[in-house]
């Protein structure tokens, strides 16, 4: 019987904390400060627990909780391995920052239904941790669906016609793809392999190449949260949500859950050798690259800041999918690294977008001339985030793009290196002009009744400064992440 | 010729089929509820015939044990049909009761007229 302090107990605690928080938050609906405190405490406790689990995992342990059997061969079970560890660390750390930002944003914009908002956030984070720590496909699927359902009220927060329309598209695309493609893929995997557990080296050895390719397709398109084109439309549609929700969707939980699932399945269900030997991953490299470039091109045409960032995200997610498709140790390390670096970079950009909206009520880039003078901190953070996304030193994104390029060369795909370079140029083209416009163009004449120009509320500023700093910190600490990820391919020393 | 002979020899089954199909036709083709029930009743009657016809064993006597006879007609289908008749009676009675209530509620017992008053959604 595992005790609370044992790794298995820690896993269960880490899962319990956000779900318990979601039950406790409604009790304080009339005391907003206490209510927000519950969220912050829960986020901090969760991060501490995840850190506590991280220690043993860095040392090659693989804590697990054996779980409840649902069907013969299918159970709800958890096991922590390096990829999941990284994802959980990113998610739990950024929840704290995002909650601080939410407080500033929601109060400054006087948003309604805030209690429900924080409850759904907690549920979404709980589901994310569930995905990160899942030991098999069923558990992953269970929490994946829970994530979709818990983020739906967040996307439709404003409850107006446009929000409901977008929410319906969101639900239809995500639930639809998961039911139509992801679920059959899981069942077929079960029928082929006799199990749905994640095992190092995969469980599908000995399956034919065509079947593997088809199955891979079912997974990649079934995991709609990875936003591989053409199943990407939900992401721009979800921009109708309040900005902290978009930050959550784009950095912390939903999209990262999607690509995390893809990478984890490629490594632990298919197995890199099986996949590469059968050549079943070839098509995905090309489809992923196409998604990458196309989304960047579309981003160039979008004047709405959040829409531009949404398409940028679709493009950046494709990096991770291509890394998985290249199917070698280096490219997987690059994918994992990109999960972390893109998260901090994008969340900074979204925080800035939300700050601009809160302070100036501006959403279109063409309106944002000269705002750098009035919001210097925000726009500097935006610059840092942009440079990280573009991949210039000394910002975190440099390393992930570097390792991904190395992975492409290792796999013999020189074309992918070219794609990465072109994409970086496109990133420059759609991100830097925003900064340039903000700093180098003059402010327009203030019209009668325009909002007073000022910086964003304090909690928002704190949050975006923290994430911008993280972009720099991760540049120097990338080695730690790489060591963690190397553990994927080392043989595990112990479990428990 | 063979076919005609078979038909004539199995006239009881021919009648059965005729009643069966005729009864079903009335149920479908007539809108008046009492007529529908009549058709249903005819249809059910054909089934009684279907069961009883094979029960009569050629050369068999009434199913009462007697040392002088060795071949008896089969009494079991008669038992089954008694049950089925009772079920049929209950069904028709219930159907007629419903017809009375529909008449009270709508003022007509024609299905089409009832549907006019309360159109299908």
């Amino acid at each position: 019987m595992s005790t609370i302090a044992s790794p298995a107990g820690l896993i269960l605690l880490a899962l319990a904390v956000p779900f318990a928080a979601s039950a406790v938050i409604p009790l304080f609906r009339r005391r907003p400060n206490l209510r927000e405190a519950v969220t912050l405490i829960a986020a901090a406790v969760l991060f501490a627990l995840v850190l506590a689990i991280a220690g043993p995992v860095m040392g090659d342990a693989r804590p697990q909780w054996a779980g409840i059997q649902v069907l013969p061969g299918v159970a709800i079970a958890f096991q922590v391995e390096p990829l999941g560890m990284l994802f959980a660390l990113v998610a739990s750390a950024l929840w704290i920052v995002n909650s601080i930002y939410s407080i500033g944003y929601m109060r400054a914009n006087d948003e309604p239904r805030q209690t429900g908002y924080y409850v759904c956030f907690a549920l979404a984070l709980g589901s994310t941790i569930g995905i990160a720590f899942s030991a098999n496909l069923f558990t992953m699927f269970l929490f994946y669906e829970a994530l979709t359902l818990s983020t739906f009220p967040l996307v439709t927060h404003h409850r107006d016609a446009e929000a409901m329309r977008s929410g319906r598209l969101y639900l239809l695309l995500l639930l639809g793809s998961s039911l139509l493609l992801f679920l059959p893929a899981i069942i077929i995997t079960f029928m082929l392999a006799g199990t749905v557990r994640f095992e190092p080296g995969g469980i599908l050895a000995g399956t034919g190449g065509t079947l593997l390719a088809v199955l891979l397709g079912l997974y990649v398109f079934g995991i709609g949260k990875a936003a591989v084109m053409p199943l990407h439309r939900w992401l721009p549609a979800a921009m109708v949500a309040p900005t902290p929700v978009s930050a959550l969707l784009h950095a912390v939980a939903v999209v990262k859950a999607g690509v995390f699932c893809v990478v984890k399945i490629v490594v632990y269900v298919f197995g890199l050798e099986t996949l590469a030997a059968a050549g079943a991953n070839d098509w995905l490299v090309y489809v992923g690259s196409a998604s990458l470039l196309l989304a960047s091109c579309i981003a160039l045409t979008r004047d709405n800041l959040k829409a531009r960032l949404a398409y940028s995200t679709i493009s950046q997610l494709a990096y991770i999918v291509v890394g998985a498709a290249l199917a070698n140790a280096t490219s997987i390390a690059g994918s994992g690294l990109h999960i972390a670096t893109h998260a901090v970079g994008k969340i900074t950009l979204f925080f800035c977008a939300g700050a601009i909206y809160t302070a100036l009520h501006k959403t279109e880039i063409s309106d944002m001339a000269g705002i750098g003078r009035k919001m210097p901190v925000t726009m500097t953070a935006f610059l840092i985030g942009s440079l990280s996304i573009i991949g210039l030193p000394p910002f975190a994104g440099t390393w992930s793009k570097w390792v991904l390029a190395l992975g492409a060369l290792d796999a013999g795909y020189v074309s992918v290196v070219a794609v990465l370079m072109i994409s970086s140029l496109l990133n420059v083209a759609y991100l830097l002009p925003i900064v340039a416009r903000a700093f180098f163009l003059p402010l327009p004449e203030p019209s009668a009744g325009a909002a007073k120009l000022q910086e964003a509320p304090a909690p928002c500023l704190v949050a975006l400064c923290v994430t911008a700093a993280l972009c720099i910190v991760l540049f120097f600490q990338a080695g730690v992440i790489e060591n963690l990820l190397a553990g994927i391919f080392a043989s595990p020393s112990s479990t428990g | 010729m063979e076919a005609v002979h078979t038909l004539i020899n199995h006239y009881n089954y021919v009648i059965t089929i005729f009643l069966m199909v005729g009864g079903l036709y009335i149920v479908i083709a007539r809108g008046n509820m009492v007529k529908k029930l009549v058709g249903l009743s005819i249809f059910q009657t054909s089934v009684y015939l279907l069961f009883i016809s094979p029960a009569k064993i050629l050369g068999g006597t009434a199913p009462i044990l007697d040392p002088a006879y060795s071949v008896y007609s089969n009494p079991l289908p008669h038992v089954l049909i008694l049950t089925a008749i009772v079920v049929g009676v209950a069904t028709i009675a219930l159907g007629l009761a419903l017809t009375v209530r529909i008449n009270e509620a709508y003022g007509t017992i024609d299905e089409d007229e009832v549907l006019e008053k309360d159109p299908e959604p």
Partner: protein
Amino acid sequence: MSQLIAQLPALQVVVPLLGAVLVAFCRGGRTAYFVSLLVSLLMPVVSGLLLWQAIIAGPISYHLGGWQPPWGIEYHIDVFNGLVLMMVSAVGALVMPFAWRSVADEIDEDKQAWFYCMYLLCLTGLLGIAATGDAFNAFVFLEISSLSAYVLIALGRDRRALLAAFRYLIMGTIGATFYVIGIGLLYVVTGSLNIVDIGSRIAGAAAVYPHAVIAALAFITVGLGLKLALFPLHVWLPNAYTYAPSVVTAFMAATATKVAIYLLARFAFGVFGQAFDFRTLPVADIILVLSVAAMFVAAFVAISETDLKRMLAYSSVSQIGYITLGIGIANKPGLTGSIVHLVNHAMMKGALFLALGAVVYRIGSARLSDLAGIGRRMPWTMTAFTIAGFGLIGTPGTVGFISKWYLVAGAFAAGQWVLVFLIVGSSLLALVYVGRAVEVIWFRDTGPAAARATDPPPSMLAPILLLMAAVVYFGVETSLTAGIAERAAALLLGGLP
């Protein structure tokens, strides 16, 4: 005590029958209610004991009146019909506390005693069909349950219930009569009415009279198809479920069609499966095609419905398509999916219709436009509704997922990739109609009709919440439902994969 245990199969049927007679002599609705409540609460105990015995000791054979089968009537209870018995009696027991207020609200005072009399007769009939091992006895119980069902439906408040009951009567009687024709043909070629006995003789009979056996199969399939509302023979169902009293809809949606499906499976595999491999028969393909048609067409109609009761009725036709699909696939995972969905759907639809019954009790209507924003006024009820709705979609963590899992596994094992995607594709349709209802219930401002609503009293809320808990519990802990269903499927297929 062991004397009592030995008589349980008979008691399962006789107790509600005597209860019905007793209630017929009652004047007031209250006495009638308490007798019905007592009987309904006893039935799961009996079923549970029978199922438990069938699981550990193998099939129970009870000779009615001491007459030896195949001349006498035999009650044959194995894991399959033990599970069905358990399901019917459990639903009956859960529906009774709900009925205390719901019936008082929806049915005239002077008719309430007769209502409970008919309800107990319906229960008798359904339990009898599941318990008996004699084909003609099954017909008798089929008609007992159907006739009482027609009366129950006709007791609805809306006058359209009368026509709905009449049409159900016509179609149901034709169905039962077709079934009897099939039984007659089987009797003529095998000389027996005992289902197990017919099964052992049919191979020989089919060799000599193949046309008669095929004709019998056809009649039985169509006859039971009318009873179980197989597309396109489902036409009676939407009106019957919509206009019947809430308790009746909940009870019947969960049980009546399921028992007919049980009987069909019993004949398809236990009788005809002994002569031919069911999979090789064209009828299996026909059932497959009709099931897929049911799954999609009924779901499309459900999407366009504005009355929630009607929407759920069409949803039932769609879900019945899933169950018959498993029978059409006819391999072990497929049949397991069928049987487990029999039980799972009873839980989900029971919860949904009872929740709607609570809404009708509070605001008198189940139209979607009247339910705007009612989630905030009736949170517990609507949470149960939402969770059961997720079950219909097949969300993991609910029972619906388990059924879908097995059905997809069955389709894949049969090499039918198209079926795999058809099964999950129809879940998308369920997503649309459930999603639409959930959106109106939770995400709209509270309308004038919904403003009067509050959660129903505990006697009505408890069964709803219990069923909701069951939908989640049996979605995770499946040894009782899927475990037994697997054994039943193995039993029916008799060793075929």
